[in-house]
């Protein structure tokens, strides 16, 4: 099992639930590390049913969005499922501005997301 500095990883059944350590996902170095940790979940740990819970996230830069897009591609390449949940309205605005609300499967809360797997 990998050591995670930017993520808190847990399991609910066969779904990997990921929460974020940083409230503001904007520092370039942290985003690179975050991306690597997310990608390792799929590529090294073989986790293909992922739920990203954004309850603790206040701020998200475009670089962080880029990592989510790459993660989505990696999950889809393994015929997996990625869902996002608990995105605050202020952050959801960023997803809407960029039309990424149409790319990602976004649920209101973790329970709804888990039920949808």
């Amino acid at each position, binding site marked *: 099992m990998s050591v995670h500095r930017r993520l808190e990883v847990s399991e609910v059944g066969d779904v990997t639930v990921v929460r974020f350590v940083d409230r503001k996902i904007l520092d370039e170095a942290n985003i690179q590390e975050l991306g690597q940790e997310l990608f390792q979940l799929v590529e090294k740990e073989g986790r293909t049913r992922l739920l990203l819970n954004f309850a603790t996230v206040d*701020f998200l*830069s475009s670089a962080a969005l880029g990592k989510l897009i790459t993660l*989505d591609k990696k999950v889809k390449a393994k015929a997996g499922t990625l869902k996002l949940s608990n995105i605050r309205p202020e952050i959801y*605005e960023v997803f809407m501005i960029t*039309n990424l609300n149409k790319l990602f499967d976004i649920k209101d809360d973790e329970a709804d997301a888990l039920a949808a797997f």
Partner: protein
Amino acid sequence: MTDQVWQWEMHQRFPSETGAGRRVLNEVLDRLRADGWAEQEICGVHLALEEAIVNAIRHGNGSDPEKQVCVACCLAVDRLWLEVIDEGPGFNPQAVPDPRDPENLDIPSGRGLLLMRHFMSRVEYHDRGNRVTMEKQRGVGGCGCP
């Protein structure tokens, strides 16, 4: 810039590494807080300036620490003016593919400009595209971040 009377000005120059950019960014945001700007507006400025600085470092200067980024900030009671300059070859912002286009939706990059334009009152590129100026009119718009 017009003949606006500015209450505070800052001019900083730093190498193309994000740590130095962070310190400049925080100085601007701290000043906005000190002047009582709404947190929502500060959030929008934060995002836009972050994007502009990262673009200058990564895309403009190719993350070359030998190349400098210049950031200027002028603050009035109701207006913020920002300028970010890199030493790179520049680019044509009109030629950047629209990341909202369904064909481009899964491309990891290209959203910084979009977010800058959304959260600032005005964004303009100058010269060969290596200089961007942004303005934020106080009390207009914002990102709603806590």
